[in-house]
């Protein structure tokens, strides 16, 4: 686990050093064996061709070296998001990592059992 996390951290730190605007949050989904990496800002995620190429190369290399473990790079508009980061790069404070705007995305269905929470928008409540 540490080796995989360190490898992701090293990569993201190298990207942040190269493109200082870019910030990252990373969370491990132990059920799906997936490291979800949320990239900010969205404009860099979608239009920075140098970054996109480096991300793709790292993605290939990581999954080749760590069979059975997966990466997922997402941004603001993606289906999946990071709720409780294992680590972050480029963020200065925890308040900056968990945005109040994101909190408003919770959609609880109070007619259902209280432990049922919504995918992709769920864990902010646990973090709060």
């Amino acid at each position, binding site marked *: 686990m540490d080796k995989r996390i360190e490898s992701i951290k090293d990569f993201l730190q190298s990207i942040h050093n190269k493109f200082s605007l870019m910030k990252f949050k990373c969370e491990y989904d132990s059920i799906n064996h997936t490291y979800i990496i949320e990239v900010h800002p969205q404009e860099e995620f979608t239009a920075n061709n140098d970054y996109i190429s480096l991300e*793709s190369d790292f993605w290939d290399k990581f999954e080749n070296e760590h069979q059975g473990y997966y990466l997922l790079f997402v941004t603001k508009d993606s289906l999946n998001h990071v709720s409780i980061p294992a680590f972050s790069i480029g963020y200065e404070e925890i308040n900056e990592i968990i945005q109040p705007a994101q909190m408003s995305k919770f959609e609880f269905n109070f007619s259902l059992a209280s432990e049922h*929470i*919504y995918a992709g928008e769920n864990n902010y409540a646990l973090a709060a």
Partner: protein
Amino acid sequence: MSALSDKSNLNISAAELLYKENHYDSVCHPAYYACLQLIKHTLCKNGISLEQQAIEASSSYRGNTHQYLIEKMKLMVNNKRGTNDGNDFRRKIRDLKLTREDSDYKDIRISSDTSRKSINLAKELQLVIQSV
């Protein structure tokens, strides 16, 4: 039109119907499989038979068929539309794949917003796959 391509469209229609009936937890599954079926069809169209797909998934991806199909399609999108489109394709289909896994296997509910986005994403991915 092949049966796989036909079933891909049927799965999108099924996802739409489930959404309209507010069965949000069940939407991501057909939306994602609509993409996988269309990938399998497209590989066949490009000379890689279903039998060959099974052999390659087994030999190169330890039988992880989904991983094989996604990576194979990414390479085809790279070649046809450029690496940026290929990378974007992988990001988006893997996003949809993880949401499908969450909806099928985790003890959570899927929101209306997530299920709607899943359908839209699947339709967007279908267009990319069809262009190859």
